């Protein structure tokens, strides 16, 4: 089980934060381009899922899975988007994303008066706390198989 990388987008779709842990393959473009593509895909998926659903959706798009990895998606009521890529065996990633939002993002970005909310996150403290949190979580236990 392993964690590949995390993206945090604001409600306008700009990339607030990116970090990677076990990422073996690079996309071959700049971080900004990649983030735009990622956001565009999520935006389309979200509206697609909501339109195509035969029943009323409560939470909408939650995750998708390929043969190699799973992308987990969490959108807060305020429009922040947390995207975490893991391998296919990971359990409880949704809770993990919730915890990251509640205990790391709110604590060290929202409560930090020097972090403005619509700009990329510069705080070193946030970065180290997030890194430590991911590394001690059960999802991160072992290296990729």
């Amino acid at each position, binding site marked *: 089980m392993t964690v590949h990388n995390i993206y945090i987008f604001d409600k306008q779709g700009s990339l607030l934060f990116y970090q990677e842990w076990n990422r073996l393959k690079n996309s071959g473009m700049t971080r900004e381009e990649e983030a735009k593509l990622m956001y565009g895909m999520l935006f389309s998926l979200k509206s697609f899922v909501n339109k195509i659903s035969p029943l009323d959706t409560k939470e909408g798009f939650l995750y998708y899975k390929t043969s190699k990895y799973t992308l987990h998606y969490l959108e807060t009521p305020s429009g922040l988007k947390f995207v975490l890529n893991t391998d296919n065996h990971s359990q409880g990633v949704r809770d993990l994303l919730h915890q990251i939002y509640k205990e790391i993002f709110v604590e060290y970005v929202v*409560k*930090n*008066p*020097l972090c403005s909310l619509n700009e990329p996150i510069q*705080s*070193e*403290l946030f970065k*180290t706390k997030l890194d430590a949190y991911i590394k001690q979580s059960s999802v991160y236990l072992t290296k990729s198989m």
Partner: protein
Amino acid sequence: MADDILLDLLHSEIVQYVVGNNDNMKDEDLSTLEYIGFSTGYRIIERLTKEMPRFKDELDTMKFICTDFWSAVYKKQIDNLRTNHQGVYVLQDNVFRFLSRLSNGKQYLEVAPRYVTFTCGVIRGSLANLNIQCLVTAEVQSLPSCKFHIQVQRT
């Protein structure tokens, strides 16, 4: 708890407001912030000491500031109190509340004074109402720890 975050956010907005009102950027004028702290401290002490006996001496007053007062305002006690017994006191808080979310190291060190000035005023105001006239300055070497130097003015 809700009231904790209210104080944190209101404090950071006050800081932002005072800093934003400065015209010349190179020398920040934080005296307004210090004065806001002073009057806050002057008033809050009436409420905190209403059930307490009178203090024996200056050191007793300082101990009150470090324990009861700090717990009431910052939800923890001062980690270290030192004095030279000649009117100089140093209060050290290893995880100062207004700095704890900023960084744990040198990042943002240059703006740290903004976030401790209010508290300098609060300490000065509290002591002023307890009949101790003093000067309070703060020293931040590495966030989130902070030292408050209190120099009592003797007449």
